[in-house]
């Protein structure tokens, strides 16, 4: 186990390095520089050169790259080009909170509702609730979350006036975006649980339990649910990652001061240091989530061996 985790950590470092390099050189190919604006171009050329020199942007790309790697190893993300005088790490720490709050709530809500729906659907197989769940499961992954977000804002926020529309001020502002993001989670979890449960319900030990005269509910709760929930962990990783990427459009609609909108803005503004920092943090998060779910799964289910788990 320990050896395995060490090996995985090595890959993480390697992956991060590849991402850092790829992003850096891609980013350098981004058209424009942070300074390309109308006022800047009105400066005499020698003054423009001075400014570029100040930020080290006049040097060859590979030198810039080496310097950047050096700074990263020291744990420095550098200063933002857009937010004058702000350290990128400060900018990021301000932005992570809202994104995590909305994302976490969405996953949590999706998990809860998805589990309930999935279990009910399997229990009452081929009844109304089952069909309803299947419809939700198909629609949930088919409706783009930004369409849903826009509609929710329009109807719940505006027409019915229940929740705030686009103000990031109190916790209530995070409800609508969380719901919008959670729908695809509900769909995926409900569908997954339903199939797992149907599978489990046919197993011999369920029949045995029934034969022993246990009540239906007890059979369901003690045997079926427990055994079908475990595999959910395998899809939880990708889901969490999806949510955090998918929030990009939703953040704009609900004016959430989060990471997703910062990322798009920073690309459009050529804010190099911010782009790099977000890519690195985001990738690190992504990889860690995958690692954690893999390890969790192997801890919980003895049938799964870590090494073969990844290969198949």
């Amino acid at each position, binding site marked *: 186990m320990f050896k395995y985790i060490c090996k995985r950590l090595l890959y993480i470092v390697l992956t991060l390095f590849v991402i850092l390099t790829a992003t850096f050189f891609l980013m350098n190919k981004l058209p424009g520089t942070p300074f390309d604006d109308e006022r800047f171009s009105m400066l005499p050329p020698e003054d423009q050169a001075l400014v570029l020199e100040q930020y080290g942007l006049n040097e060859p790309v590979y030198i810039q790259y080496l310097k950047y790697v050096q700074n990263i190893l020291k744990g420095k993300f550098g200063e933002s080009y857009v937010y004058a005088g702000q350290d990128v790490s400060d900018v990021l720490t301000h932005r992570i909170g809202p994104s995590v709050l909305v994302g976490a709530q969405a996953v949590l809500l999706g998990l809860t509702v998805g589990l309930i729906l999935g279990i009910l659907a399997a229990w009452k197989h081929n009844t109304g609730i089952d069909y309803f769940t299947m419809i939700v499961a198909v629609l949930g992954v088919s409706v783009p979350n930004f369409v849903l977000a826009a509609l929710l804002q329009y109807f719940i926020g505006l027409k019915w006036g229940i929740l705030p529309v686009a103000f990031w001020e109190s916790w209530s502002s995070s409800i609508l975006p969380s719901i919008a993001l959670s729908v695809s989670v509900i769909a995926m979890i409900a569908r997954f649980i339903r199939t797992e449960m149907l599978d489990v319900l046919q197993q011999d030990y369920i029949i045995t339990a029934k034969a022993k005269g246990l009540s239906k509910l007890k059979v369901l709760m003690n045997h079926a649910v427990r055994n079908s929930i475990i595999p959910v*962990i395998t899809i939880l990783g990708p889901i969490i990652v999806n949510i955090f990427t998918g929030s990009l459009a939703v953040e704009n609609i609900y004016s959430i001061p989060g990471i997703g909108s910062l990322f798009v803005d920073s690309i459009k503004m050529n804010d190099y240091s911010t782009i790099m920092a977000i890519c690195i943090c985001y990738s690190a998060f992504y990889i860690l989530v995958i690692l954690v779910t893999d390890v969790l799964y192997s801890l919980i289910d003895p049938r799964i061996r870590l090494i073969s788990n990844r290969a198949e």
Partner: protein
Amino acid sequence: MKKSALSFILIFMLVFSLVACNSNTNTNTDNTKQDALNVYVSTEINTLIQWASSNDTSFTILNNAFEGLYRLDTNSQPQPALAKDYKVSEDGLTYTFYLKDNIKWSNGTEITANDFVYAWLKQMSKEATNGYSFIMNDYIVGGNEYFSEDISAEEVGVKAIDEKTFEVTLIQPTPYFQRLTVLPMFFPLNEEFVTSQGDNYGLSADAMIYSGPYVIKNYDIASGCNLAKNDKYWDTDNVAINDINVRVIKDCGAALNAYNAGQISKVTLQSTDVPAYKDSEEFHSGSNFRTDYIQFNTTNEKLSNVKIRQALSYAIDRNVLVDVILADGSGTGVGMIPYGMNGDGKKTFRELNGDINTFDAEKAKQLWAEGVEELGYTPELTILVSDENVVKTIATFVQSQFKANLDIDVKIDSKTLKARNEIMDGKVSGVTYDMAITAWGADYDDAMTYLDLWTNGTPYRGNYVSDEYNSLVAQAKQETDNQTRTELLLQAEKILCSEDMVAAPLYYRGFAYLQKPNIENLTVHSFGPPIEFKYANFK
């Protein structure tokens, strides 16, 4: 089974840790009071450091938390603010400003002439990263030399004669200099405080001291800031609204939803929403001193022929653009200088110069045919635009007009603003542009803010070099007689937008907005600082 129990525990731990982190943010209390005004800005408040700020959002906050020598009133006329009066020498070169006696920073320190000297010198030096150094250096003696560090601060034409007297020496007579002092770049800064904060100055609300009608209570780049009445402000008795919450809402649709839900008191409408709200009592519109125009690249082979350029300009029916597509109070772009901008003091510039750029499909066709003949081939053109929604709409319109009136297919190339600028600046080797849609917003109420732009012959200005045009503008700069000066500028505009057709004006950007009926005197200016909270009050 034990393993699945473990899974339960793990999932519950996850649940609880998440709930726990929710409750933290839950304590954020809603601080909107009854007498608070809620408004929004459409971009992030990138910075509040005066010498680094360059966009309208930052200016909005700065203008209300700080103050300069003069402040625009509800009719956009400059009124004494920190200054009580000023005197101009006979040759028009020396301005002496006399400061009010009872003016204080929000921490109680007296505001003195030295605060102006410090702030202005900073703005004139390389330290100023907002790209606005020219707005002082073009006028003030020694500015450019100080920027390139050739002379010391003492030699620059800004001096504190005593605590309350501030003297500025200009390079040439500048009739609009007093109007410039309302801009955020000209606001004072307290040297002692700024240096004591070091690199932290301007990064948070308590790392600043304020001279304006409001103080900033808290500030977050991405979500906005809360303003409260500044009780140290000299005119605090005339500030009616106690609290103002400025929120960042980037999405137009979301902002309109927020307005309709009563969360904000004023919202800017997109063109497409105007028809639905036009008859509402809450509907208002106005226009900015901001011209959107097509910049032709005059050294580009395909567009080097002036007839081609003129044909393109004649082919655009700007009235349709303004009435049907924009419909938000924008003005038809009949010349480079927008409606309402000062001409000779009695009449506006537009009234004096008339409609230069008009729509004439026949003339367009004829000129195009002649141009094509002179050129020897039919040019295939591309129009370079930035990827903002409004600009893309305009480009689509212009494209369809060329198709309808000249029967040519013009391609649209949309890039991010930075990428577009890079190409327009000629910094991408081997890439030039044919024509581009761009805009210029007036820094001050005088035609010079526009016409001066085309004298430098840079790629951004279409590589336009004309001795005639340059000498007209240069003469106007030296001229002390207002009448002759205006004549020269009128002539220059005709050359720019008609004879040489360097730039084809499209429209003057308007803004349509909804405002709750219980608010009055929330003043919006057509140039310079965008909005004034000082005069606003609830009915």
